[in-house]
Every structure is written in structure tokens, then in C-alpha cells.
């Protein structure tokens, strides 16, 4: 399985390492051949001088012709070159030239020179040669690669020709208890076809047929509901989608965050290592407090260090919104949905226990773990409250910064909670975004735009669904013109979508960041950072959560009339129009509709 995937990937441009390895190989090869060719080379130099001009003119032509060259043959020739006698073939001359000049420093000259001078000094030629060498080595690399690709393609095509017929099967054609590996192989085949549809696909089949089959296989292999599989599949290219689904099958590495209120990361790492925990700083150098735990002989959630609040178990992805929020000392901050307190305590630590942090959570039971973590980590600047977050700013407004880590469908944390695969219904993807929109508007209204240091709102979810991410922040931008999106200040992450399946979002939405399990090995996550630029009439909004909900429902109804649910058929009303048009049709034919009726009556 892995090998097949690897093969797929090889067509990507080579990484730096690969490239250098290939280069060094080439150098070795050329050095060996250099000895053999020293005698020949002197001959060649003379020859080349004379033929230089021709070659220069012809080279571009040669390049154009390249794709038509038989690469296998070419490769053999270039290998055998120094064993055989010199051929007058132009292509071979290039190779030779490259080989015997290879000992010289290649880095000297980057510019490609073209000269039409009839007479050239040796220096010029050498210079020129060096240019050519660079170019040629690049070209050879390309050729090598293309040869590889060619071979690979052939292999693939062979495979495909065997399998292309049975890739698309109807449900009834499938074996009853098909082996999962068979399903898997078929999935990968289809992905390959979808990635290169024009050449690999069966011309009689449509793309949607392939996609449909693939989705069914995904449902079967990974155990999603069809609805969710399709929703997630649409976010990615087929290859990436499979990677995403596969990444959801493995759990993310355990990460812990150093509580900087009590200790330093180095000291903590030291004392844990002494207890036999294998760990290292979170790779990527974007967090100064995170540690990644590989294996531990002791329960990592019950060490004396843990109990004394030196660290907290926290997913790497939940560092991100706090880093984006960038709290400053002495500020007033609200965390709207804070349980179990990983982010709240991080904010508190960033502020070094100054200012005040309001930690709110709607669920009273979850506030227990929140309060426990706050006390264990020694955060003295917190107030824990239990409101529907939509009650803000009625409760208290004028915050410098607000973090809204909104409740979500959890499509980014399927690795952690596989129940999501089956439990999420289309209704969830309507209701939850509906709540998220209200929460975000409440957050925006609760921020003080005149704050000297802040005026920041960070919106984050652990979902990758566009309805909960881009659509929500786009909604907020439309409803509250007094906020704008700004750069999150995070070192990693992919740009959010500005358009998705026909929906267009505000251009600045691209400033938000998406995180995927297969790309960064963190949970699927979304972070957007707003700055409030001015006051709005909503700022002293005293309506309660219920009133807001009522208002939002009304708006939703109004919107649905304009948008989608409008064109329903009302049969009773239509009947009237149908009768009317029938009458008109009869009149046109010169028949009096009333007379016809009378006849019927009689």
C-alpha cells in the first residue's frame, strides 16, 4: 500500500536531498569516466571549437525536440558513451562536454551566455562550457527524471490495462465479502485515474462515475457515513483526500505544554526524561512551550510534575489560536468556550497572571475540569463563568481580546473521536454553523474597538468543513463592516478558501489559516483573526441569547425566501392558472370554452 503511494508521489519535483544525491552520483560517474576520456577530450576540444557555433544555434532546436527522443535508448547511449568510440551524434557531444568540464567549479557563473562571435578565446569557451554544463546537468537531471517517469507510467499503464476494466463495478457486481485490501487497491487505482483523467480513464466512463465508486469505497473502507465522506472528499484533491482519510485513522502524537508560570521547558523536559519519558520539542519551531511525547513508561497524566501544574496535556493544534490571539500583559480577555481550560491557562500564562481572563463555558459540568486546570496550573487572574456565550456583551463587554474556539462538528479531530464519522448529520452542518455565526457576532460586539493594545477577535474551530469556517467568517464580515481580517501571525498553515463550490467569499478570507492532519500532523483546525476597527450600533447590544436566537431565526427565514426554498410548487394555486391557460388555448382555436362546459354539464 505504502509503496504504491510512494510511486504516485515520485512524480513530484525532487526534494533538495534527492536532487543533491542525484548530482553527487553524477559527479562520481563523470569523474570515473573522466580518466578514460582524458585522451579523447583533447581531441574533442579542438573539434568542439569548430563546431561550437553550429551547436549553439542548434541547441534550442534540440531542446524543442527533446520530448520526442526515445529516452531508454538515449540513456543507454549516454551510459555507454565512454566505452564506445566517439560518435558524431550531436547529443553525445553534449554529454561529453559536460563530463570533461565537470571538475571545474560549477557555481561560478549563473548567466547563460550566447555569443555569435566567430573566434573565441579559450577562456570564453571555458566560460561558455561552464554555462552549458549547468544547463546540461539540469537537462540531464530532467532527462533522468523523465526516463524514470516514463518507466513508471508504462508500469502504471500496464497495471491499469489489467485493472481498468474492473475498477468500476456496480454494487451488485461486488463480491459479498470483499477483502478490504481489494477495496483499498481499487480506491488507489481510481485516485490515480482521477488525478490524470484524460489519459488514464476509460473514455466511456465519466468522472462522476469514478468519484461515486471511490466515495462508496471510502465509506466502506474507512467507515464514514456517505454524507460525511462526500463532504470531506470535496475539500481536497483525490490524492489529498485519501491522505486525509488515512491520517484520520492514526492518532496524533501526544503533546504537552509547559506551564511557564511554574517552570521552564528545559527544566521540565529534563525531569521528565529522568523519569523515562521519551520526548522532544514540537517540530517546526513555532512553539516555545510545547513538547511532543513519543513514549512513556509512566502515565504522563499522573506524574508529580503534572499534578503540581508544571505542564498540561494539550493538542498541538490548540496552541495555535492562543498564539494568534497574542495576549498582552494587563489586558482584559474573554475565552467564550473555554473548557477544559488548555487555551485559557495558556492565555493566562502568556499574560503572566496579570490583567483578567474571563473563562466562560456553556456546560456547567465541563467547568469542573476547567476550574481544576486553572487551579492546578496556578492561574490567579481568571474568572470562571457559566453563560450561553451569546449573552455577551449583555453580561460584560469592552474586552481587549476575545478567543472564540467555537463548538463544532469535530471533523478535524476524527482521529481523536471516531464517533464523528457516523454521528454527524446534514442537520448538524446547518445548526452548528448557525450557532457559530451568532457566537462570532456576539464576540465582535463584546470587543472594545478603542482598546490601546488589542481589539482582537480570534475565531477557531476543530473542524475542516467550509460551512463552519470560511462561511462563518464571511458572514461576520458581511454583518459587521467594522471588523477586518488580519494575518494570524502563525508560522504554519494553509490559506483558507476564498471560493468553494460556487460560493464566493470575501477576498480577505484567505488570511485565515487551515490545518490538516496529513499536512502538519496536528488535528484538523481553522484559525481566523479579526481586528475591530470601529464601533457599531450593535456594541451595546443588550439582547439576551434567546432574543438573539429569535432574531437569527427570523433572518434565516427571510434569507431562505430569497435564496433556495423559494421555488416550491403550490398545486392548488397552479390549478387556477392551468385552467386559465387552457381556456385561452381553446379561445385561440375559436372554440368558446363556456359552450364546451355547458355541453359537459348537460
Amino acid at each position, binding site marked *: 500500500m505504502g509503496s504504491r503511494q510512494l510511486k504516485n508521489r515520485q512524480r513530484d519535483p525532487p526534494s533538495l536531498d534527492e536532487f543533491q544525491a542525484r548530482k553527487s552520483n553524477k559527479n562520481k560517474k563523470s569523474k570515473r569516466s573522466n580518466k578514460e576520456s582524458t585522451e579523447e577530450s583533447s581531441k574533442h576540444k579542438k573539434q568542439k571549437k569548430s563546431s561550437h557555433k553550429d551547436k549553439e544555434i542548434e541547441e534550442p532546436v534540440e531542446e524543442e525536440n527533446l520530448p520526442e527522443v526515445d529516452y531508454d535508448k538515449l540513456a543507454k547511449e549516454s551510459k555507454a558513451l565512454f566505452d564506445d568510440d566517439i560518435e558524431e551524434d550531436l547529443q553525445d557531444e553534449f554529454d561529453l562536454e559536460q563530463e570533461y568540464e565537470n571538475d571545474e567549479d560549477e557555481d561560478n557563473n549563473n548567466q547563460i551566455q550566447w555569443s555569435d562571435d566567430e573566434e573565441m578565446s579559450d577562456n570564453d569557451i571555458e566560460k561558455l562550457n561552464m554555462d552549458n554544463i549547468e544547463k546540461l546537468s539540469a537537462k540531464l537531471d530532467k532527462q533522468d527524471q523523465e526516463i524514470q517517469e516514463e518507466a513508471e507510467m508504462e508500469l502504471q499503464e500496464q497495471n491499469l490495462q489489467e485493472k481498468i476494466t474492473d475498477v468500476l463495478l456496480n454494487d451488485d457486481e461486488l463480491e459479498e465479502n470483499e477483502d478490504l485490501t481489494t477495496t483499498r487497491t481499487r480506491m488507489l487505482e481510481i485516485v490515480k485515474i482521477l488525478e490524470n483523467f484524460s489519459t488514464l480513464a476509460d473514455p466511456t466512463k465519466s468522472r462522476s462515475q469514478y468519484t461515486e465508486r471511490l466515495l462508496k469505497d471510502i465509506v466502506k473502507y474507512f467507515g464514514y457515513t456517505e454524507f460525511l465522506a462526500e463532504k470531506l472528499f470535496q475539500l481536497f484533491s483525490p490524492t489529498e483526500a485519501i491522505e486525509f482519510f488515512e491520517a484520520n485513522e492514526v492518532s496524533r502524537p501526544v503533546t504537552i505544554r509547559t506551564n511557564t508560570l511554574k517552570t521552564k521547558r528545559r527544566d521540565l523536559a529534563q525531569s521528565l526524561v529522568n523519569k523515562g519519558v521519551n520526548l522532544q520539542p514540537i517540530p517546526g519551531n513555532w512553539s516555545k512551550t510545547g513538547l511532543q511525547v513519543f513514549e512513556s513508561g509512566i502515565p504522563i497524566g499522573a506524574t508529580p510534575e503534572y499534578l503540581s501544574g508544571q505542564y498540561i496535556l494539550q493538542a498541538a493544534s490548540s496552541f495555535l489560536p492562543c498564539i494568534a490571539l497574542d495576549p498582552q500583559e494587563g489586558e482584559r480577555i474573554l475565552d467564550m468556550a473555554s473548557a477544559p481550560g488548555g487555551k485559557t491557562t495558556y492565555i493566562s500564562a502568556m499574560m503572566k497572571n496579570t490583567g*483578567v481572563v474571563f473563562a466562560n463555558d456553556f456546560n456547567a459540568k465541563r*467547568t469542573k475540569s476547567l476550574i481544576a486546570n486553572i487551579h492546578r496550573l*496556578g492561574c490567579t*487572574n481568571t474568572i470562571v463563568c457559566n453563560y450561553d456565550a451569546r449573552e455577551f456583551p449583555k453580561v*460584560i463587554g469592552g474586552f481587549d481580546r476575545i478567543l472564540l474556539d467555537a463548538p463544532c462538528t469535530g471533523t478535524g479531530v476524527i482521529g481523536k473521536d471516531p464517533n464523528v464519522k457516523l454521528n454527524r448529520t446534514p442537520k448538524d452542518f446547518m445548526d452548528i454553523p448557525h450557532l457559530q455565526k451568532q457566537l462570532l457576532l456576539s464576540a465582535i460586539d463584546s470587543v472594545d474597538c478603542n482598546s490601546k493594545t488589542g481589539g482582537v477577535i480570534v475565531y477557531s474551530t476543530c473542524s475542516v468543513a467550509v460551512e463552519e469556517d470560511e462561511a462563518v467568517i464571511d458572514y461576520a464580515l458581511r454583518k459587521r463592516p467594522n471588523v477586518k481580517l488580519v494575518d494570524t501571525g502563525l508560522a504554519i498553515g494553509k490559506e483558507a478558501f476564498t471560493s468553494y463550490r460556487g460560493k464566493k467569499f470575501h477576498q480577505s478570507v484567505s488570511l485565515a489559516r487551515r490545518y490538516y492532519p496529513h499536512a502538519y500532523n496536528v488535528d484538523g483546525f481553522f484559525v481566523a483573526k479579526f481586528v475591530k476597527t470601529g464601533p457599531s450600533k450593535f456594541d451595546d447590544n443588550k439582547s439576551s441569547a434567546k432574543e438573539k436566537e429569535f432574531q437569527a431565526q427570523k433572518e434565516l427565514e427571510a434569507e431562505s425566501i430569497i435564496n433556495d426554498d423559494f421555488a416550491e410548487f403550490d398545486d392548488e394555486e397552479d390549478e387556477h392558472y392551468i385552467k386559465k391557460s387552457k381556456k385561452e388555448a381553446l379561445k385561440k382555436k375559436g372554440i368558446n370554452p363556456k359552450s364546451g362546459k355547458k355541453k359537459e354539464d348537460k
Partner: protein
Amino acid sequence: MRQLTEDETQKVFEKLANYIGKNIKNLINKDHVFRLQKDRVYYVSKTIANFATSIARENLMSLGICLGKFTKTGKFRLHITALQILAPLSKYKVWIKPNGEMPFLYGNHILKAHLSKISDNVPEHVGIIVFNEKDIPLGFGVSSKSTNEIKNVDPTSIIVFRQSDIGEYLRDEDTLFA
């Protein structure tokens, strides 16, 4: 949320004085106040206490650091959450060896075998703060014997009765916090 009554203040301070003695005056300053919310007593900075007034009583779950709670019979009980306030001000301290850490964190009393060092002149039956050898506070208890007596007892005898330890964060999470 409200201030403590005189009676309540007296009960709380008596309990605190058990562990920190005269150092209690360090707790009482202009910037910090004691607040009662439901049956719990919180020690919190004044600005935060003022902000917390905007939160309705039934919605306010916690503020600052919780010291403990008044039982139904009107007695005051210190919680493990008070440790971070008591530890730096403590009057008597006991340090335990690494092999004694886990037994203590699982809720056992401290045996002489696990004793690393102890403050001089600890009298019998006084509040004492328990540290490990890295000076991390682990809990608090009551000395069962004075420092001098400890020298003469056998290794398996109890020297400190455990009252509270940080293992409670895991064991008693359901009852400890609201």
C-alpha cells in the same frame, strides 16, 4: 459573591494560621481580598473581584484561587487548591524522598522511611507543608510527632498525617470543584 462576615473571617484565618502562622499578614493587603461565592472562599486580587461583580451569582463558578469551603456544619475546610498560597508562606516544612512521592500522592500518610528532611523545632500536631526534594509543594498535613521525637521512632511509623495532596486533582475532581 460577597465579603466574608466577621465570624467566617475568623474561621478561615484560624485555619490558615495553622499552616502559615504569623505570615498570614502577608496575605492581607490592599490588592487582595477574600470573597465568598456559594460555600467557597476565594482569595483574589481586588480588580478581578470587582470585575466578577458583573457576573450573576448563579453563573459565577470560580474566581482567583479557591482556599476551601464551609461545610454544612459551618466548619471551614482547606482545599488542595490553597496549596499555592500556603506553600511560599509556610511555617513548617517537610521534604520527602522520591520513593515517598507516589505513596503520598495516592493519599497515604508520610512514613519516617520516606522522610528526607524536616524543619527544626516542629511541634506535635501542627500544620505542615509537604515538598519533594525539588522543592515542589505536594500537599499539606499535620505533624504526628515533634522533630525531636521523630529521631527515635522506627522507619515504618507515621510522622505526618496527610490532609490534602495534589493527587486530589485527579481523584476528587468531581467533588472538589463546584
